[in-house]
Structures are given as structure tokens and as C-alpha cells.
């Protein structure tokens, strides 16, 4: 390995450059959240914490934050629930139309959101469903379902099917087997799915922009603020806080995913 990397000094340098490319924009956001001036441009005039201090009094921002939590929470629960059953079926059962069904469920991942958004808006208006947080949840459940299914599928793939058979063989009913064996073992996968779908929904903009009506979610609110530079530093402060929060969630999700894998590996041994 070391011999090869000496042969390839260019690769290391390139990786370093790429990491700068990845992190530069992301680090600018916390940086400017401490900037004294309201204009987000160089040079930086001075350091301040005032934007963080003002967050608590920004009503519209806090409202949109609350909306986003509601939407992301509901979305996470719905898509994880739908995904749980589907993933169980895809891994454990062989049924007619399975490939078709699996392909369809993954479809939202490769559909331009603008088309999904415009189509759903058109449909909801036609059937008299007013844009609201509920319509955003409907749309986000659709968008996040592929993530839930993928995560839960791997959770099911990693655990020995004999465990469910053993419970059934020992006299347990089908729902009882699900409750006493399946759920506890895939629980970490469920948590990971909840976290990921929550985060994806929390950050989704285009669908929310089309479907949220007069109750903006956080990204929709940020969108409206990007046009008004005076308000922007607050948004940057919030974004930085959320970055910290998201990284925490990510680390938690990874922790739970690994825990599933460990439990599953034990079960196989």
C-alpha cells in the first residue's frame, strides 16, 4: 500500500484539494454567522454573537422552524412505517410483481423534484386539497420512502430469517413474532431510518415551496430571506446551529446502524 501511494503522489494531493472544495462553502456559513456586518462578503468586519442572540426573537423564523419539525417528524414516521413493511416483504418474501414494486418504490429517487412538485400541486388543487403542512407531509413521505426502504432492507438482510421461524416454531403467532423478535432486532435500523428521513424532509425545499401554502417550512423561509441580505446573518446563525444538530443526528444514525449490524452478526454466529 505504501509503495503504491508513493507511486501515486498526485492522488493524495487531489484528495486534499477535493476536501477543500467540499468544506469551503460549508465552513463559510458558520464563519459569516459570526460576522459583524450584515453584508455577506469579504472582508469580514468584526466578530459578534448578536445574530445568535436575535434568533430567539425572530418569530417568522421560529414558526418556520416549528413547521419543519412537524413536517419532518410526521414524514419520518410515515415513510419509516411504510418502508418497514415493504422492506420486510422485499427481503423475506418472494411474490409476484416484486421487482416491479421495488422499482416503483425507488422511483422518487430518480424523478426530478420540480415535476413531482408541479404534478402534486396540480392534483391536490384539482381534488380540492389546499396547500398546507399536510400536503407537504404527503409529498415528503413520497420523496423519502426510497431512503427508508433502502435502510430497512439492509437491516432485514443482516438478520437471520431462522430467528423469525424459530419464534413461530416455538408457538408464537405471526404478530407476536413480529413484536417479540423482528421489532427488537431491527429497532436500530428503524431509528436510523427515522433519522435519515427526518433530515431529508427537514432540508427539502422545492416540494415544500410548491405545497406548503402560507405556512412555510424552514427552507422556504430561508429562500425568502436570501433575497433580503439584511436578514441573512440570522439565517446563517440558524444554519450553523442546524449543521451541528445534523452532524449529531448523523453520528447517532451511524451508531444505530452499526449496532444493528453487530446484533445481526451475533445472531448469525
Amino acid at each position, binding site marked *: 500500500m505504501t509503495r503504491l501511494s508513493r507511486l501515486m503522489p498526485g492522488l493524495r494531493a487531489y484528495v486534499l484539494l477535493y476536501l477543500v472544495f467540499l468544506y469551503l462553502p460549508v465552513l463559510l456559513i458558520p464563519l459569516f454567522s459570526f460576522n459583524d456586518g450584515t453584508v455577506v462578503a469579504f472582508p469580514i468586519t468584526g466578530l459578534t454573537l448578536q445574530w445568535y442572540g436575535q434568533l430567539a426573537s425572530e418569530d417568522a423564523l421560529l414558526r418556520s422552524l416549528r413547521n419543519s419539525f412537524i413536517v419532518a417528524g410526521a414524514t419520518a414516521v410515515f415513510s419509516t412505517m411504510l418502508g418497514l413493511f415493504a422492506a420486510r416483504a422485499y427481503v423475506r418474501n418472494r411474490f409476484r410483481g416484486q421487482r416491479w414494486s421495488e422499482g416503483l418504490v425507488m422511483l422518487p429517487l430518480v424523478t426530478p423534484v420540480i415535476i413531482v412538485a408541479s404534478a402534486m400541486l396540480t392534483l391536490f388543487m384539482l381534488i380540492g386539497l389546499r396547500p398546507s403542512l399536510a400536503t407537504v407531509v404527503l409529498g415528503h413521505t413520497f420523496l423519502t420512502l426510497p431512503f427508508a426502504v433502502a435502510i430497512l432492507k439492509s437491516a432485514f438482510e443482516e438478520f*437471520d430469517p*431462522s*430467528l423469525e*421461524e*424459530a*419464534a*413461530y*416454531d*416455538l*408457538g*408464537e*403467532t405471526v404478530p*407476536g413474532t413480529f413484536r*417479540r*423478535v423482528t421489532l*427488537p*432486532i431491527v429497532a436500530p435500523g428503524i431509528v436510523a431510518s427515522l433519522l435519515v428521513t427526518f433530515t431529508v424532509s427537514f432540508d427539502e425545499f422545492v416540494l415544500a415551496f410548491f405545497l406548503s401554502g402560507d405556512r412555510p417550512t424552514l427552507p422556504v423561509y430561508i429562500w425568502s430571506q436570501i433575497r433580503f441580505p439584511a436578514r441573512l446573518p440570522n439565517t446563517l446563525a440558524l444554519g450553523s446551529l442546524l449543521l451541528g444538530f445534523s452532524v449529531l443526528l448523523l453520528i447517532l444514525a451511524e451508531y444505530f446502524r452499526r449496532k444493528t449490524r453487530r*446484533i*445481526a452478526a*451475533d*445472531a*448469525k*454466529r
Partner: protein
Amino acid sequence: MTGRSMIELIGIEKRYHSFQALADLNLTLQEGEFFSLLGPSGCGKTTALRIIAGFLEPTAGIVRIAGQDMQGVPANRRPTNMVFQSYAIFPHLNVGDNVGFGLSRSGLSRRQRKARIEEALAMVALEGFEDRHADALSGGQRQRVALARALVMQPKVLLLDEPLSALDKKLRESMQFELRRLQQSVGINFVMVTHDQYEAMTMSDRIGVMFDGRLAQVDTPTQLYAFPANRKVAAFIGGMNFLPAQLVGEPAGRLEVMVAGLGGLDIARNQGVARHDRELVVGLRPEQLHISRDEPAGFDARAQGTVTDAAFYGETVHYHVEIAGVPEPVVVSVPNHFHTVDFKRGDRVWIAAQGASVIDLGARTDN
């Protein structure tokens, strides 16, 4: 064995679309039998076991357990319990909760359940392991927990799916005896699936040998070894030399044959095989052949040949001997007793056999 039939499989068939996993399986197991289904992978033995357990519905046929038709009775209500190949120890529960898993619906009090769990763990020599966590168990302990978890349900039949395949060789051998002892002490039927002939032979009262979804032969280990029903069974169980032979005469219950290379022999008639003409195949077990440098006396048949290969196995030595008139080299296995035999490649040797140890395998073209 009391002679009452415990499991009856009548005309069992299992098809997956065009693939025939099981064809016309008929089998009756007596109460208290240790029975093994033996065969190569994909022969349908596991499918048969899962049909008995209730995990699979047969496409056709009847399953009876203790005289009761099992059609429509799901796995969780059958009087059978299974030890899975992976053992399927619940990773989120400790040993006591694993063993007590199936008792929670039994209506027993907590005290009674605790007593039953202790009893089951004692049966598999795991006293005091109740609080041990599942990932703190060795492979052998996991298997014992799986056994205890199934036996605590007091099933009429215990099903074992390749129970020893996950263990290393030494442990496997000691577990063979332990399983046999356990079966004799609880007195219920054990039905085991295995691809390992030695496992099946050492533990079972009877063995069912399966190929391609069909039962080829059901018999006791000694009968199976002495009178295989066809060449496939003969080749699968133990080593076997196949020699072409010609039928000369049929005195009462016996056959007179001319075996290629060896000459005339009087052998026992095998009831299980078919003959349409005088062309036959006979089988000679490698360990039933005698090998020596000088012409031996007191044997029914002998031939001279050349050693083409010698393989040292430790407890035995195998020689391949080429004999004029015999298509394949004949394999002879000799116990490595005080290192008394030692032939080299190219040595001229005599091999000899008794008629009583030569196996009639029927028509040459049949199988």
C-alpha cells in the same frame, strides 16, 4: 421402539413452478426413532424437514404426526420443534429468556416456567447459564441452548436441520454421542437432516437417503452399508469399487458371478436392485479387500496387480491397484496397524476378496 407410527408422510410432493423439489415421498417413522435424512445439498431433505415442521405446505400428499392430519396446521401449532442450522438464538435475549421463549404462551406460572427452563438447561449440561447473554456463548453452547429451547416445549418430534455443521470437527464428534444420548433419555423422535454420512450412520436408528427429490433407500445403517439399493447410494455411503460382472447361475437366494479380474464368486442376492440380463455390477468396499505381496490363501477370489498410487491417511493407507481386465484401478484401504504394510508405486501385489463381502448392485445399465 414401541411400533406405533409417529410420523407418516404419504405421497408428499413439492413443486416450485417447474422445479420438482420432492417427488412421491412415502415414509413412516416409528415412535422413539432417531431418523436421519441424508443426501447431497439440493436433494430435497431440508424441504422434507420443513414440510414436517409446517414451514412449507406440500403441493400434494398427507403429513400425519401422532396419527393427526397436519393439513392446515401451521408451524406454531404443530407438536414439533426445530433446531435450526444457524441455531437462531435470539440475540436480544439472554439464555433463560431464549429457552423460555415458547413457554410464555403455555399458561404456566412464572415459577413453573423457571423450573422447566432449569430442567431443560440441565438436560444439555448448561446449569446456571440463565443470565448469560446470547453473544457470550460459544458455538457448542449456542447449539445446546437451541436444543434446550426446543426440548422445553416437550415436542413429540424434534427436528434438527444440519445441527452439527456449524461446529468444528472435534466438537462435532463429541456432540454426535451427546445428541444420541439425549434422544435416548427423552425418548421422543429426532428427525435430523444431514449431508454427512458418518453423522447419519453413528447417530441414527434408520436413515433415508435422498437424491433429486426422491427417497432412494430407507434402512438401518448396517443394512444401508451392506445392501445399498443402487450405485448412487453405494457411492454416497462409504467408499466403493464398482466392478463389471457376469451372471452365471442363480442358486437359491444367491448369485454366481464372474467378476472382471477376480473370477468366479458366490455372492448374496440383493433384494433391492433390478436385473434384466446377465450383465451386472458388483461393489467391493475398499476395507473388505485384502492386499499382500505374496499370493494369499483362504480367499474366494484373488488377482494380481500393480500399485499405481498410495495415499497415507493416518489411521489407514489407501492403495490404487491396477488389475488386468478391470477398467478402473481398485482402491484398497488397509488399517495402519503397527505399520505392517508398506507398498510403493509400481510394486506387484495380490488383492483378494471373500464372496460374502461382495455386494450385488444389479444391472449394469440400470443406474
